[in-house]
């Protein structure tokens, strides 16, 4: 008996479980947040004092890092579903460490920009860059906190299949934040 849909309850929406509804709705909220940031960016872009920021090439490396993290999480999900503990562990480690790598790289990119004199308050393009990357970074950090909790829980157990739902959701969150990053990166590159 699936504990999230016991025989005494009305079936939920679209056969999703509680955690899935929670996370998907959360992702909707995150989408709106970045939509508004983009909106404000595009609005402000049209004013005279806008000077586009050169995009540090380090960001390409960071993007690749996040892609690898997503692949890792996908691997972990498959491993959990097939009860393969090794794959789960490797996948989780790749997912977590490359996310941290991404965060470090983002921070390093900030340092590069500051060293080149692109300070936050000088120009709205600069401010938006720092603000949007900070927001995204904060959401990745939140994900890392969830990653720590889930990794700890599924490390010790022999039967990892019971954790597959959680790992799968975490992976979804990873993929989604990668998608958000790609869109923001695209925004920076194209303007």
């Amino acid at each position: 008996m699936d504990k999230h849909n016991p025989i005494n309850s009305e079936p939920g929406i679209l056969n999703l479980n509680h955690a899935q509804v929670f996370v998907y709705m959360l992702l909707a909220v995150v989408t709106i947040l970045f939509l508004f940031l983009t909106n404000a960016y595009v609005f402000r872009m049209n004013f005279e004092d806008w000077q586009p920021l050169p995009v540090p090439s380090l960001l390409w490396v960071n993007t690749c890092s996040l892609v690898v993290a997503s692949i890792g999480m996908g691997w972990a999900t498959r491993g959990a579903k097939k009860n393969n503990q090794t794959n789960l562990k490797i996948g989780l480690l790749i997912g977590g460490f490359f996310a941290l790598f991404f965060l470090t790289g983002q921070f390093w990119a900030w340092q590069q920009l500051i060293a080149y004199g692109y300070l936050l308050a000088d120009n709205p393009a600069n401010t938006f860059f720092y603000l949007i990357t900070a927001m995204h970074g904060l959401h990745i950090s939140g994900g890392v906190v969830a990653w720590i909790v889930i990794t700890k829980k599924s490390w010790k157990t022999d039967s990892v299949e019971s954790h597959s739902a959680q790992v799968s959701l975490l992976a979804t969150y990873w993929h989604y934040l990668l998608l958000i990053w790609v869109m923001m990166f695209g925004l920076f590159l194209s303007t």
Partner: protein
Amino acid sequence: MEQNAAYEGQQVYHPKGWWGHYVFSQDHKIIALQYTCVALAIGLTGMFLSMMMRMQLGFPGLFDSIDAGSYYQDVTMHGMIMVIYLLTALFLGGFGNYLIPLMLGSRDMAFPFVNMLSFWVYFLSVIILSASFFVPSGPTGAGWTLYPPQSILEGTPGGDGAGILLMLISLAVFIIAFTMGGLNYITTVLQSRARGMKMMRMPLIIWCIFLATFLGLLAFPALFVGAIMLTFDRVLETSFFMPEIFKGGEVLDYGGGSPVLFQHLFWFFGHPEVYIIALPAFGIISELISCHARKNIFGYNMMVWALVAIAGISFIVWAHHMYVAGMNPYLGFFFATTTLIIAVPTAIKVYNWVLTLWHANIKMTVPMLYCLAFLITFLIGGLTGLFLGNVSVDVPLSDTYFVVGHFHMVMAVSPVLALYGGLYHWFPSVTGRMLDDRLGKIHFWITFVGTYLIYFPMHYIGFLGVPRRYYSNQQYDFIPDSVADLNQFITICALIVGASQFILLYNFVNSAIRGKKASKNPWGACTLEWQTLESPPGHGNWGDQLPVVYRWPYDYGLPGATADFVPQNVPDEQIT
């Protein structure tokens, strides 16, 4: 560590110790009480601030300490506290938390731990906001709308001090709390309904709270983004919203920003926000009017579709707050049309409530009195909205007392009347005792008639052109002395109404301790929260067996039954 009993598949937290039981409780009923108490407490503060404002308007010069600076601080904090920290928190955090699991036949919210966190983060946001009263510059006096550039500059109280910052940080923290709570409500409504509780058998108040939560989750991010950007402008001297400014004899270090951008962000949030407050009020009325008139709600399906329409359209009306803000004038056509369109589903809801009274069997209980008063005052508030929504009519009326009268009627008077009705109605479920009826009626009459006398005349000085947010009218010839007399009258009414709220407070506390003991279902309601094994419901709500639902929540006056109501969990075979 907590023990999680898989009570028929639903996680229920068993609290350990006093802290786990009463402070960091994960039981939705306790959390609801916590939200209610904090919201009412901060709401009392908001009411006190409004009394200060009224003293200045009614009896200028009586209190030396109310100068222009402190007046605007009172105005701002009163507005923000009432809208966000009282009404939003109380309707969703208070009523939502209490009713959703009970009315759906669930043991608790889907994520009790996150629910607990959401209260404590809300509490933190209240603390941060309150802290702004104690900093040197005092709280912000920028108007609850916090428009830049003035809100972060000297010349507005708190603009160049910590006042505005604490406000913005508090809002950001509130939004985080709301998001946590809101995700919980959505998940619970979609996933945790008892068997037989299809979506179209949910009580209307659940639909209302569900849709209001949805609105909030999608609208609050706009405020969040605006608040962060305004904080940047203030602290880091960026120019999201700050154009070139010449002030205090010099050109400031800002440039290129757009004040109108803030307004778009603010009102994209701000308009859905008023529906976040109105929708739960609508829900309370639907439940109360049906139960106390002993008649099924009229047109349940249309009520649901009207709610969905209102929720959807509410996202595309925001710029009716900006008709004269200097945005592209052609936008006025679009927003006036959408705004007047949203009047139609709202009117349908009013008709359906009223038609519920037709051929009913109306008991004039205190909750019913509040329902009827809601209808009258919501009519006034809603109809005056039609003036303001019509773009050209808004030109002479915008930023006058017509607006103040309108939004108080439709956001303060009618939802608060609904709220009070809800408190009287559900008090027996929460405490097992009845609120005193006589005190209830006294409180009702003073509040209903008093608030009507306060806000109705304001529309007419709005027609005259008396602007809002004015510390004093004395300098203006076009404002006759009779307006000062009216202000005096309104202030006296306000003081009386304000004082009478303590009747409710007394009734609350006194009845909770030694009120008349209530039977399990004193009002004879069909909805599930009254069908628990014991009332007040125990931890886990339903004992060993979750309820099963066989019918919609409005089988009052069902033909063929001897009783005048049939609860949702009674199957056809068991109807007497």
